[in-house]
């Protein structure tokens, strides 16, 4: 057994760290940090979640950003503990009016190829990203013009719609990753904390600390080796076996690490949520009473317990309690788990039972299988027979070909929370199978998007969430606790756990001399 020492790191606020034995705070152990250590991070590079296209305007998969955010950095960063935008490559920003957004870069930024990251470079990059074939055109298509200002590091972004309110957090995502002119899919060049070194496609990506990063003095890792893994389970096993430094955790798969003396788990809440995404155009799901019956009939707690034992917050709507501007407290008790109420709603709906529905879970994933099987058992109680028909390509089968009645799915929240409403409940979105939601939702969304502060957006969220919950457009199940499993010699005094294939903020992580 490889002997390892215990160094516990204490995160703040909602981050809970499992500590075995007495630990020392990072402040004391900082002297022992090894500046030459590289972090070995395991992630799935083979599945559909990772596209290999390491260029912001070409990425197609969620997990691409786990590398992209380190190489390119983002203009703005979302602090996961407050959900507020904080400066990153951009020093400041301003919502001038609902259709105008202004962003100012830090002084003296350079890309990893030595060229400056100034207003002109920013304009070049955004102009590339906002039009097809850029995969970001759907979100940045609202930009009509990017005007560099005289100071050389400020740009004014003119919008064709009044959506400036969502721009700060939008630029905290892939939209905010800025590439140099020389950057390519295979050799990305950005101005982020880590410089791309090399990759073996599907196996390994190596990045090293970029010495001219604006905050380089606070970057403690010499580099990151991203290593391919097949499943979360195997990743956690590899950390426990001492073969990897860190992986993203996933509910049940974390079990081997729970009691391992050398391993720690960081946790954080996010707005990712497991839910039933319904095709509300298909009978009987076009019937609001039937949808309410489903909301009553599903035992959310049973599902959460089976998938993320002890590590979840039950969902009553699209946002968790921690999202104070979005979460509507008064709606929390709207659909308690009750077979009786479900049967009453069903009777009101006039739908004759037994009725047969089809659920389309993603194939190959034990968690979605469990999820669908519990839903099947729940619905049987109210006389609904559920056929389970898994698919390897949900987007195609359910959302485009409109097969099946609903899907068991995980919605990974984007940095800006309003995207959840936009993508799921407004017309003509790919992830909106029913396409027949109340027209008041886009109106409420417009209010959110035009707001210049988060508080100003509140009224919009209140309207939208009330309609969604009242109309039972979805069946929200639970918000999983996001987790990261790592060796105890990996430390940080500000764990930023992004979760859902986004990793952590690696620029805030260090490795102590305890690593062999």
């Amino acid at each position, binding site marked *: 057994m490889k002997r390892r020492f215990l160094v516990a790191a204490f995160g703040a606020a909602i981050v809970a760290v499992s500590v075995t034995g007495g630990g020392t705070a990072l402040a004391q152990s900082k002297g022992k940090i090894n500046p030459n250590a590289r972090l070995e991070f395991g992630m799935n590079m083979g599945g559909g979640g990772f596209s290999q296209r390491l260029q912001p305007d070409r990425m197609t998969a969620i997990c691409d950003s786990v590398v992209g955010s380190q190489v390119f950095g983002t203009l703005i960063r979302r602090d996961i503990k407050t959900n507020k935008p904080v400066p990153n490559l951009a020093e400041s920003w301003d919502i001038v009016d609902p259709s105008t957004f202004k962003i100012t870069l830090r002084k003296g930024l350079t890309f990893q190829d030595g060229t400056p990251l100034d207003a002109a470079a920013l304009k070049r990059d955004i102009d590339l990203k906002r039009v097809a074939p850029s995969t970001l055109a759907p979100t940045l298509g609202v930009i009509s013009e990017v005007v560099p200002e005289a100071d050389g590091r400020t740009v004014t972004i003119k919008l064709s719609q009044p959506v400036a309110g969502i721009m700060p957090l939008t630029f905290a995502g892939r939209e905010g990753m800025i590439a140099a002119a020389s950057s390519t899919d295979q050799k990305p060049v950005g101005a982020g904390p880590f410089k791309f070194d090399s990759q073996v496609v599907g196996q390994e990506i190596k990045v090293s600390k970029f010495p001219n990063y604006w905050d380089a003095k606070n970057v403690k890792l010499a580099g990151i080796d991203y290593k391919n893994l097949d499943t979360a389970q195997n990743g956690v096993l590899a950390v426990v076996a001492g073969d990897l430094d860190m992986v993203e955790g996933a509910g*049940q798969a974390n*079990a081997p690490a729970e009691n391992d003396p050398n391993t720690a788990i960081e946790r954080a809440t996010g707005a990712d949520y497991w839910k039933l995404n319904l095709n509300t155009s298909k009978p009987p799901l076009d019937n609001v009473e039937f949808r309410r019956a489903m909301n009553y009939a599903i*035992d959310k707690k049973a599902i959460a*317990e089976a998938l993320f034992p002890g590590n979840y917050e039950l969902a009553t709507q699209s946002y968790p309690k921690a999202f104070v501007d979005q979460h509507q407290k008064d709606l929390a008790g709207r659909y308690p788990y009750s077979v009786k109420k479900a049967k009453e709603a069903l009777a009101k709906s006039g739908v004759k039972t037994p009725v047969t529905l089809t659920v389309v879970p993603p*194939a190959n994933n034990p968690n979605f*299988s469990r999820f669908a*099987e*519990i839903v099947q058992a729940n619905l049987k109680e109210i006389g609904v027979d559920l056929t389970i028909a*898994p698919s390897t390509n949900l987007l195609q089968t359910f959302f485009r070909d409109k097969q099946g009645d609903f899907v068991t799915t995980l919605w990974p929240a984007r940095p800006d929370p309003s995207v959840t409403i936009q993508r799921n409940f407004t017309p003509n979105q790919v992830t909106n199978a029913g396409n027949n939601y109340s027209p008041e939702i886009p109106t409420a969304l417009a209010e959110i998007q035009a707001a210049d502060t988060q508080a100003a957006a509140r009224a919009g969220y209140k309207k939208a969430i009330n309609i969604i919950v009242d109309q039972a457009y979805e069946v929200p199940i639970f918000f999983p606790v996001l987790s990261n499993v790592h060796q105890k010699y990996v430390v940080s005094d500000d764990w930023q756990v992004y979760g859902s294939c986004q990793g952590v903020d690696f620029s805030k992580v260090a490795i102590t001399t305890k690593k062999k």
Partner: protein
Amino acid sequence: MTDRHPDPNADPFVTSGNAGPLDATTEVERSVEGAWVPVMHQSDDMPRHVGFWKRFRRNKVAVAAAIYLILLILAAIFASHIGLQDPNAQNISEINRRPSAAHWLGQDDLGRDVFARIIYGARVSLQAAFTAVAMALLVAVPIGLFSGFVGGWIDLVLMRISDAVQVNPGLVLALVITGILGPSTTNVAVALAFVFTPGFVRLIRGQVLSVREETYIEASRSIGAKRGYIIRKRVLHNVASPLIVQAAVTAGFALLAEASLSFLGLGVQPPQATWGTMLSRAFAQVFQAGWLLWIPGSAIALTVLAFNLVGDGLRDALGAEGRN
């Protein structure tokens, strides 16, 4: 170098020395998981006139394996009549429980009775395996007979096609097919049938060729017997024995292949329990419930072994009888 004579009743799995390996390749069983090389459990010290049953009974191991398989098949068929618990009844408050008096093999990740699921799982697993073999036979028998009898360029083309299927590793081919058709019980059976077919075609054709060369066929032809009659009476009789043996062994492979496909996420999909899906689910939570891994795993291993041993026994018994 010893030269072994191509004997129509000889072991169909072992190369005959006269053919080049590439041709020999085709005589040897190829499957998704590999080749089963049978073992002679008894030599010909028994008088030749002894019948099939007497010969088969002599092989105690094969008999035990056969009894196991028969019991398993009966249990699978009558699963709903033998007082098992509902295999799909969930009990979320009792997940991953160890074996107990109420649940002989424990409870799974949704609190379901593992023993009931193993028996019901046998139904789907065996059904998938048998369907695959039956479909392969359904296609292979006519093609093999036709190819062997007609000969000439048609035979040549058919054999090149079956070679072309066989040069692909079985698992890769099955993966590609299920990947394209979409994962389901039927598609897994179709994919495996596709992989197994050329082996059966080769086997049947080989038997037809060797029988055809034998003089008695020539003789019956000269007295004007009809072709159909010849096929029925002689060829099928000679083809049947090795075919039954290979079918038994192939069914074992189909079980293994189904498990591999399920593990790679392209097998039979939930909620249908097969041993393969149960094993890959157990794999996903080996730390919470380690013993769950052993149950479907051993079920697969035991059953595959039983199929192989029965295949051995049949081969010994049928092979010897066929020489009469």
